[in-house]
């Protein structure tokens, strides 16, 4: 089976300034990331703030230009950004952002906003569009009488549903969701997560789900990639990866999720902060916070290697010895 989306060695460097008049410090926000998404598969991307998740998500859709690497969608290379071919392709891939209120136009009714992609991509006539909007609203659990409402008249969860309905309007094969539930209360979050689960079930729709909430990611995703400082440090099927993390960072990340009934002590609590992406540590970027770090970690960048049949990790110590000692 060919992958729906295949990214190879993506690189994105921001040449942002530090402060108002500081020196330009290049930030390798995404630094050689390769991944594939199969048709119908959901890939989760997790990692801490600033690890490059959002940047990667935008690059997968070609919204952000890549300084290196390629993206292939449906077997063919992604067309240049802002070309007609690329715009046409956008009907087949859509994005959902974290803040629904910012993503919606407060002057348009929600029906008008859901209809917008149909108009942009010239899908159907007026009647077919109206029918499709009704269908979409029902699919995401919005009542027909809410069609004429404005975004500020809806709750946060309902707004996020509008955003999802709009993203689904053109029938995309790929949906990239960037923290779609992070701003929502648990109960509303569960409503939106369930909605996404249903979307997964009903069609062969692929999804890239970006989040720092490991619990939601585990619930929703078939495979998970863990990012640290612009690189993927571990990747694998979500059940396996959560049950048997190989990279010490993944282990710490999973361990830091508070679960009712799991006591504080016995958890792996990382020391220190996530490093500044403009000052990437030598060797393995995680070594200053890693309990297993040795000289090789300080000097040599670890490659992603197979640790289990379907799991890869970029750690010098992921091969049984030190890792199993710490586990």
């Amino acid at each position, binding site marked *: 089976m060919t992958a729906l989306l295949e990214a190879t060695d993506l690189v994105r460097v921001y040449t942002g300034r530090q402060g108002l008049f500081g020196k330009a410090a290049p930030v390798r926000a995404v630094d050689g990331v390769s991944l594939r998404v199969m048709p119908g598969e959901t890939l989760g991307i997790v990692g801490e703030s600033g690890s490059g998740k959002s940047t990667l998500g935008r690059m997968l859709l070609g919204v952000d230009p890549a300084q290196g690497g390629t993206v292939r969608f449906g077997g063919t290379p992604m067309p240049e950004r802002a070309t007609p071919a690329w715009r046409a392709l956008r009907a087949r891939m859509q994005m959902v952002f974290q803040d629904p209120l910012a993503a919606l136009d407060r002057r348009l009714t929600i029906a008008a906003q859901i209809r917008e992609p149909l108009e942009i991509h010239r899908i159907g006539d007026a009647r077919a569009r109206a029918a499709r909007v009704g269908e979409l609203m029902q699919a995401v659990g919005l009542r027909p009488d809410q069609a004429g409402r404005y975004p500020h008249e809806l709750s946060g969860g309902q707004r996020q549903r509008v955003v999802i309905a709009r993203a689904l309007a053109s029938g995309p094969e790929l949906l990239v969701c960037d923290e779609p539930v992070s701003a929502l209360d648990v109960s509303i979050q569960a409503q939106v997560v369930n909605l996404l689960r249903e979307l997964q079930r009903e069609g062969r729709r692929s999804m890239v789900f970006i989040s720092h909430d490991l*619990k939601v990611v585990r619930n929703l995703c078939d495979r998970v990639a863990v990012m640290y400082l612009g690189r993927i440090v571990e990747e694998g099927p979500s059940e396996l990866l959560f049950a048997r993390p190989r990279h010490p960072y993944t282990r710490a990340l999973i361990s830091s999720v508070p679960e009712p009934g799991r006591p*504080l002590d016995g958890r792996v609590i990382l020391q220190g902060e996530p490093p500044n992406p403009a000052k990437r540590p030598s060797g393995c970027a995680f070594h200053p916070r890693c309990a297993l770090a040795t000289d090789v970690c300080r000097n040599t960048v670890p490659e992603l290697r197979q640790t289990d049949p379907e799991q890869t990790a970029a750690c010098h110590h992921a091969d049984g010895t030190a890792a199993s000692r710490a586990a």
Partner: protein
Amino acid sequence: MANLVEIRDLRVAFDGVPVLHGVDLEVAPGEALGLVGESGCGKSVTWLAALGLLPSKASVTGRVQLGETDLTGAPQSALETVRGGRIAMIFQDPSSALNPVLKIGRQLCEALRLHRGLTGAAAKTEALRLMDLVGIPDARGRFRLYPHEFSGGQCQRLMIAMALAGEPDLLIADEPTTALDATIQAQILDLLARLRAEMNMATVFISHDLGAVAQVCERVCVMYAGRIVEQGSVGQLFEHPRHPYTRGLFDALPRLFGPRTALVPIPGTVPDPRNLPGGCAFQPRCAHAQPFCQSALPDLLPQRDGRKLACAYPLPERGQGGERQAAREGVFQ
């Protein structure tokens, strides 16, 4: 043991719209109390009202008893010695909770001067000790830096250090980790738990992360629409929630272990305080609601096992079969 703080029938209204409808709450010395509930249910307002920190358009009634003094009627000067001195409060989003134009050393020393009378070198020594205590590396070198020169996690540590400056009997932590990264969250929770043990300081931990609350608290209050609906020990509430709302909060939570099944959300959304449903405020979203719930507002009543509950048809107690039998117990005890 006498309670450190007792809140009785606390009511708050903004521009005539009531958002707290009579909250009763007590905190024992040294205790760790969790306050959970969905956004807008009044968790923050409860403690802001108790400390007199709400804007003047808020009208506050009820009693907040701290030892001998009633804080709701107390004059500003009395409140000012309580704030930061006996009750300290830290907030969500530490980066914006510190004054951006003042050096953090100065912000720490201000608290020390106000509540411990320390100035000059003595204040600086103590401030450095506090920075060390909360784990700021190179405290001496960073004493004269500004908040933006620290990371989010470090800012929250500084907030905690500032709260500790007055050696308070009670620390209110209002979603102290919500704006932080997962690994930093764990560090801060760890720090709070450690400090509480070391300093025997009561803590109120406000959060909507049930997992975090379970880890740091002994007792939990669940709030809904401006009322406490269930209250009990962490074990009681988290293993056998009896209020359908408490239960709903747990079921909605995705799990880190076990099978990956569909989540069970609570249907609907939190009601608008201007437009509360009749009877029990949770009744329109409740799967167990009976017609009775639409007309009568359940009181928060003590139960046999020590918890308090405000529900006419609560979920059955452990080991007790028929739901019928357990029903109505909350009302007619």
